[in-house]
């Protein structure tokens, strides 16, 4: 029991530290309202993930112009903040986020907020879980060896063999290339499974099957901690 409490405390400290880093890293690029929307999104969906799992988050907040142009800079800024010294970070913005969330009802939401809310409400659990497992898996691989881009490109090139539906194929291709932050609901579970398996096969080739097994397991376990996993088990994708 004591060990559980200690591990929860440690988790809270880590999340608070990461929240400060996200706030610090995003501040130069976003207006106050957009910044709070982005932090709310991070808090809701990405705060329990590994610190380095930024790709999905950055894609999501940079879906529209002009942020899309700044995606690389934002990514770099976030990484610097996350892995830089504590002294360089702003104070924890938790209270500001909560205040913003309370006051948001009835107000005109900024574009980013609208996008985030629309994406969250319409996506099926299976789609969200697939995105989460896939992105986590690729980030873990990237940490070991910088090959996630090659994996994305390979899958993109072979989508025709997996997906018969043209519009869905185009959409997945855009998502893989980072041109679309979220997937729509057109992808079947069997197709998601095949795409994830393609990534696994390439991971086996490049980093070895044992490491690939461990990373896929880690990505799935992480995803299982999310609320959504109660509606759709990530193991359905394996």
């Amino acid at each position, binding site marked *: 029991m004591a060990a559980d409490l200690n591990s929860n405390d440690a988790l809270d400290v880590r999340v608070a530290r990461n929240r400060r880093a996200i706030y610090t890293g995003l501040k130069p690029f976003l207006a106050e309202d957009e910044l709070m929307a982005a932090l709310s999104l991070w808090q809701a969906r990405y705060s329990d993930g590994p610190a380095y799992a930024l790709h999905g988050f950055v894609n999501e907040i940079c879906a529209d112009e002009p942020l899309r142009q700044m995606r690389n800079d934002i990514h770099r800024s976030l990484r610097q903040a996350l892995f830089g010294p504590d002294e360089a970070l702003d104070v924890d913005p938790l209270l500001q986020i909560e205040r913003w969330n309370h006051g948001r009802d009835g107000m005109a939401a900024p574009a980013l907020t609208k996008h985030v809310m629309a994406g969250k409400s319409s996506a099926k659990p299976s789609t969200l879980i697939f995105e989460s497992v896939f992105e986590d898996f690729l980030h873990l691989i990237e940490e070991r060896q910088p090959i996630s881009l090659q994996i994305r490109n390979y899958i993109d090139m072979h989508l025709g063999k997996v997906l018969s539906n043209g519009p869905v194929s185009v959409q997945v291709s855009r998502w893989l290339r980072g041109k679309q932050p979220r997937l729509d609901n057109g992808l079947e579970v069997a197709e998601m499974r095949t795409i994830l398996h393609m990534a696994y096969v390439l991971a*086996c*080739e*490049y980093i*070895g099957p044992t490491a690939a097994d461990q990373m896929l*397991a880690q990505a*799935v*376990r992480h995803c299982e901690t999310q609320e959504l996993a109660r509606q759709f088990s990530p193991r359905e994708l394996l």
Partner: protein
Amino acid sequence: MPYRGVALALFWLLPESSHAAEAGDLQASMDTVWLITAGALVFFMQAGFALLESGMARAKNTVNVIMKNYVDACLGAIAFWMVGYGLMFGINPSGWFGQDHFFLGDAEHLDYSLLFFQTMFAATAATIASGALAERTRYGGYLVASTLTTAVIYPVYGSWAWGSLYSGSGWLKDMGFVDFAGSTVVHSVGGWVALAGIIVLGARLGRFGPDGASRTIQGHNLPSVALGGFILWLGWFGFNGGSTTAATTNIGLINLNTHIAASSGAIGAMLGMALLGGRILMTNTINGSIAGLVAITAGCATMEPLYAVMTGLVAGLLVLIGNAFLEKIRLDDVVGAVSVHAFAGVWGTVAAGMFYAGDLFDPNRIWVQFIGIAAAFLWTFPVALIMFWLISKVIGLRASTLDEARGLDYTEHYEIGYPEFQLETLHQGKN
């Protein structure tokens, strides 16, 4: 104690012809007891193979490896009784294969004992390939290959080298080929089948990188590998000692040679590792001892202990060289079966010719040994290659990458080896 005195007194009171008959019966009984005990020891080797091979595989394939070992022994027993024994030991007028004693029944007691003992040998030859093919072979395809090996491939070569137990002989046996308990007949044949299998199958996913680099895939349970090694070693005392097929006095030399060759094999492998890389791996050490056992199998009855040591030492070194060679040509042998059984079997068969007691380094004998080795390869390897190729086309041999990722335990058997601990097992079985 008093009963024994009475029995002895009664024995000496019997006429002399009765003494001879009694002694003959006693010898026959002792022979049978030894043969059956030795057969049971050889059967126990299946447990050794199962532990060693499953330990060297990943946890997600444990059940599959053990099932293959378990069931190939079952199917092999039936196939050998039906076909294999007759082909191998039946009346053999041509010298190429036996022609009767199929579906053995209504026979002499000794025939049943011999069939029992030889069935265990056949199962050993067949199960050698299972370790090499582990982690990516479909269960059904493997069983077909294993059964055909027991029923046809192994017995036909065996009939050449060991000849008939009834009448006629084998052409290799007539040339003077020396393979007392089967370095070539059992182990090289099994090893060549394994080689053909891994060529047709291809490597496990990720075993070799895109740049050609070899990548070690660690086994999941090294204590199990060690226990498997010990069990195989113990079983070999029945394998070699039992090949006298009688309770004779030379079993002492045979099993002493067996033991010291295994020890030397382990030492040879350790020396080789120290000289080559400096890392002394337990898996290679155990494989070295098994290579020593394989190598001494041909000459254990006809060689002095000093030469048994040399035979084992070289076999241990050979395992390392053989494994490195296979990796270089990108062949994926999960447990090193080709090196341990095929390559060490070849060396042991040559050594049996070179170190033949009282006739050392006789070039004629060594030449015959080479003929026997070549015949084993030329019969076994192409036939096995065709067999695996046909299985891959007709039944299917290679598991899909999806099944390989999920692990063959679930995809082939719907069970896992360690349900409480196997947190890495992610899949939910075959769809």
